């Protein structure tokens, strides 16, 4: 019998290892898997590459992981926020590597990893600093930049309802990166509000089919 439920966030992340690439869902705090990030801080893995739209807020979540200097490199679109002081400090000390990616390219690169696309031509960022050194091509009179997929070892996401097969629904704008990251990691862990009996989720409304999810933590 398939049962993707795991007893705790710590158990779900037990096999995270130093040097891994870890995707973290959320746009600001909406969709941010706070319990899983806290478990990742407790886990102690170092030298991580984090893929996330933002770089942590105040003294919570991802910001604490940064503060603990566990992150070697971050791939994100909007690290600077009014309360991103831990990131700001590391960045100014050159104690963290930043790959800044336009938000739509970030989303599409994560999707490409999940969908087995080798690379794609995006018009976003053409002739800007963020496309420097990248291959470009004119197609049908429009200029494009070649972008590559972003794969991960783990994806930590937050969803709303789940069943033991790992099917997920999301809530409002907390959906954001969750469904994409779920598809792009070898091991996707979802923190969910409720785990329902199999069959309780309407199959028309499932946003992430269970095939993309390895572990579920109720939180």
């Amino acid at each position, binding site marked *: 019998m398939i049962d993707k439920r795991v007893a705790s966030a710590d158990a779900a992340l037990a096999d995270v290892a130093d040097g891994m690439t870890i995707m973290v869902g959320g746009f600001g705090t*909406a969709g941010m898997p706070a319990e899983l990030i806290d478990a990742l801080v407790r886990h102690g893995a170092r030298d991580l590459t984090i893929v996330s739209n933002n770089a942590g807020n105040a003294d919570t979540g991802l910001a604490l992981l940064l503060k603990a200097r566990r992150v070697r490199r971050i791939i994100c679109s909007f690290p600077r926020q009014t309360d991103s002081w831990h990131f700001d400090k590391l960045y100014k000390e050159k104690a963290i590597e930043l790959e800044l990616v*336009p938000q739509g390219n970030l989303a599409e690169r994560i999707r490409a990893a999940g969908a087995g696309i080798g690379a794609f031509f995006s018009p976003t960022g053409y002739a800007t600093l963020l496309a420097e050194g990248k291959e470009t091509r004119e197609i049908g009179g429009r200029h494009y930049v070649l972008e590559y997929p972003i794969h991960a070892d783990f994806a930590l996401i937050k969803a709303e309802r789940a069943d033991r097969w790992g099917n997920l629904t999301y809530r409002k704008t907390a*959906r*954001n990166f969750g469904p994409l990251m779920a598809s792009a990691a070898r091991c996707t862990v979802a923190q969910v509000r409720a785990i329902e009996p199999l069959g309780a989720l309407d199959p028309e409304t499932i946003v992430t089919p269970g095939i993309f999810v390895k572990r579920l933590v109720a939180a």
Partner: protein
Amino acid sequence: MKKFSREEMAARVAREFPDGAYVNLGIGLPTLVANHLPLDREIILHTENGLLGMGPAPEAEDVDPDLINAGKQPVTALPGASFFHQADSFGMMRGGHLDFCVLGAFQVSATGDLANWHTGAPDAIPAVGGAMDLAIGARNVYVMMEHLTKGGESKIVARCTYPLTGVGCVSRIFTDLAVIDVTPRGLAVIDIVPGLAFGELQRLTGVPLSRESLQRQP
């Protein structure tokens, strides 16, 4: 001469949208436009974090941390709203489905280049978000900004000195002094603040302006 206020600028932008337009309002000054949308038209607001049919800010007791806009402020969802993930949301932009976006800017060039994401200062912490996607994605990219920097320099320039957000992407510029179209033949002033002579606007602006399309506002 009294400059257009921020609210006047926002009202001026809001008048541009026809019934049924799909519009994305950028962070900062452009968010004010939402307060001025004509009540006799249905304008559907897109927020790139995953919502079409965004409504106004909620009452304090109705704030929902899962329902926010791209500026991470609480919003509401109107009847007819839909939620979607980031690849779908940015596909909407990149695929040319949005009719308008309205963005703030540091600089706009005479050929419609936009600089609005980064000062380029060596110690600045860069952040781009959806700016580059919006710049190249919407069918009409409108910029709202003050005409001059605090130091009195024109933010409309021959060539952007700040790092670019997008090339040749801006179609219309709304400032506190004028409304200016970016055309293949250069910048065409279509509106000007009452009491400001065209010659003075030209003097304040770094690059040649045309007055051919200029209509005094009512």
